[in-house]
């Protein structure tokens, strides 16, 4: 084996092996995990965007108490420096005695009381963030929170930052989505209200989802990231149904169905406009309406065509940590007549519907895993792409124009496609401007 090159597979090779035989280099559990700036979002999801800590604070006017060894809270100063998180993070530092005796749990009520007296205004809730240590100690955090709530008179909820369980049935980002909706209490349902679940900062305001829902008679569309107050948040319990926009919100939606009787429908974020159209048709059928999405469809189609006419068959390299499924995005771009030379993402079995499509359209597209040890030897700057999408793709191709496509405010639907191509255009034109 060449010790100085990064392992990769072509789409054709992966497709031929099938989803039952994914190469071990593309399965993170089978090897040590390489730590490069391109893999930071995997190892430390909160380093950018939303990890458990920021997600837990989506509840308006809440604060977080991190009860953990110091190392678990070290990177929080990055977040604390953001104005909206001023005075919202507190730490109860564990030592080795705590580890043995579990006494850190008994200190939580006192810590909450001190935090409440320190703050000018009583928080709406205290989110207790615990980490791998308590996962291994088997701490019953639900009970600890109930007890703390009784003692202090403040709502207390757990947020489990258990990295050890990230590939389990209920990984941390699934759990935290349940936690943030767990304070909703049963209310009279409003048949014209709906919640969008899955994203912490909400959708881009230009998404066609809003006018389509309004056109279907929905008057009130609520998202946790757009709740201005805790009362606004509590009003989410009035929803007639929940719209799941991220698969990690399924568990939260199930919980809301069981506790409050709110049913849910799931939509997937897609970049292929034909599939977006089919999804809206199916969604409309499920709720008994017919969406007229033709104007949005045509706008997205026109934006794609405009870009293609202006720049031709652009060659893309696509990263993993972006507001898209990288394989769906790659397949869409190929479908539109563009090229994709590299994808930096490890495919899971459920991605094979796209891997097979990529293989049929562009069999030589190379697929790398950011996490694979030999990525240490990736020839940075040696790629052929004209444009990269995702910050990780930019790490490997630093001199190529890049669209990070990772904003907190989320793109969705046809407007997501329009926004993406607008940003791609900006990146390409700024590069041409430099020439």
């Amino acid at each position, binding site marked *: 084996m060449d010790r100085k090159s990064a392992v990769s597979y072509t789409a054709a090779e992966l497709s031929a092996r099938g989803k039952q035989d994914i190469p071990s280099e593309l399965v993170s559990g089978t090897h040590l995990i390489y730590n490069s700036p391109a893999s930071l979002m995997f190892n430390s999801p909160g380093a950018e965007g939303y990890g458990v800590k920021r997600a837990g604070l989506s509840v308006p006017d809440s604060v977080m108490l991190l009860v953990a060894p110091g*190392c678990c809270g070290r990177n929080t100063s990055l977040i604390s420096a953001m104005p909206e998180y001023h005075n919202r993070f507190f730490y109860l530092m564990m030592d080795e005695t705590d580890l043995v005796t579990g006494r850190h749990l008994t200190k939580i009520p006192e810590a909450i009381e001190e935090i409440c007296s320190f703050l000018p205004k009583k928080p709406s809730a205290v989110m207790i963030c615990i980490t791998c240590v308590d996962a291994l100690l088997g701490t019953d955090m639900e009970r600890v929170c109930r007890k703390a709530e009784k003692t202090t008179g403040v709502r207390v909820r757990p947020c489990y930052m258990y990295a050890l369980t990230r590939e389990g049935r209920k990984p941390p980002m699934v759990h935290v989505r349940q936690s943030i909706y767990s304070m909703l209490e049963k209310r009279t349902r409003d048949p014209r209200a709906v919640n969008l679940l899955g994203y912490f900062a909400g959708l881009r305001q230009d998404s066609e989802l809003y006018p389509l829902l309004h056109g279907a008679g929905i008057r009130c569309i609520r998202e946790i990231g757009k709740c201005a107050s805790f009362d606004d948040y509590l009003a989410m319990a009035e929803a007639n149904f929940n719209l799941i926009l991220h698969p990690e919100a399924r568990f939260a939606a199930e919980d809301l169905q069981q506790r409050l009787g709110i049913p849910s429908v799931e939509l997937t974020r897609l970049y292929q406009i034909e599939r977006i159209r089919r999804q809206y048709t199916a969604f409309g059928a499920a709720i008994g309406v017919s969406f007229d999405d033709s104007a949005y469809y045509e706008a997205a189609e026109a934006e794609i065509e405009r870009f293609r006419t202006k720049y031709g068959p652009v060659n893309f390299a696509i990263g993993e940590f972006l507001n898209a499924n990288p394989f769906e995005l790659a397949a869409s771009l190929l479908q539109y007549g563009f090229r994709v030379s590299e994808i930096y993402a490890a495919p899971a079995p459920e991605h094979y519907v796209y891997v097979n499509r990529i293989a049929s359209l562009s069999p030589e597209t190379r697929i790398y895993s950011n996490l694979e040890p030999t990525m240490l030897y990736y020839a940075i700057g040696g790629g052929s792409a004209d444009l990269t999408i995702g910050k990780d793709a930019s790490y490997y191709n630093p001199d190529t124009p890049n669209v990070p496509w990772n904003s907190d405010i989320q793109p969705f639907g046809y407007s997501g496609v329009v926004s993406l191509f607008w940003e791609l255009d900006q990146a390409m034109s700024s590069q041409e401007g430099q020439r």
Partner: protein
Amino acid sequence: MKGLRKYLTPFAPDQSGAASVLYDLGGILVICDAGGCAGNICGFDEPRWSTQRSAVFSAGLRDMDAILGRDDRLVQKLTDVSQRIDANFAAVIGTPVPAVIGTDFQALCRMASRRLDMPVFSVAANGMELYDRGAQEAYLQMFRTLSKDAAGKDPGRIGVLGAIPLELGDLTDSDKIAASLREEGWEQVVMYGMGATFDDVCSAGSSARNLVVSPSGLKAAEYLRERFGTPFEIRYAMVDWPLRGEDLSGKKILIVHQHVYASSLRQRYLSQGAAEVRLASWFEMISELLEPERDCHLLEEDDLIGLVRNNSFDIVVADETMEPMLPFFCGRFVPAPHFAVSGKQVCV
């Protein structure tokens, strides 16, 4: 309340200190964690990471690995990597997960040594201690495992211990230390943990002298003195410092920083006319430098708040993250960056 932080985010932990010492030595570093610790070490505590590649890996532990103690799987993964990566050594660095499950690092290293064609050692960090403790342990293990018996001393070579980025305000500080030592007449300045090579570590016994610039380097200096007879001194080779050139006559000053830097700063301020200079540190302090009447160790936020409230300091010199803790302080707050505290580098 003991253990509660309301102002300061946690300081760099021991695992980050250990990784910092070993970062640019050309070894395989395995952070024995589930991913988050490795992410924090590299993404937050290692400023070289964005510009300088290093073979730092997460063990990628999952719940069943921890519950079942599957060390053999970790050894297998390490063996696989060693066959694909060019490296001089392998080091396994602990985190809270192995601390909870009681991983036997010595046994783990013995198992790995039998399979790998390179030296293997460990640093039993636990994520609850601070960076200086981890760096100290990493220095010790590094010299114990990698240094060879020396044929003789090189009179022009000085080793510097403790100049890792976490100790400093910016990455150029190490260059300044080296420049200062060259001005003193040293031909070869070896900065362990900050530019020293694997060969430099192997030949550590040939240094004529070692210089300890932070408490994290002290134990290793003592070890090298015992093993190779290399003498050492403790001081920060300063070129520039806060308040340099100012008349400090009659001023009462508090410095909060790592002990060696703070102590050297004290000498400068006294020579600039300061009436009294007191030191405080969140990190380990060295008895030889301690002035028990004036110096103190800080553990809780209230310790610093009380210290400043109960003394009429004219000037407080500390990392800027501490300033919001002291809204009542009417004197002059002078920032002295400490990466292990703020995680921020100074722009130079």
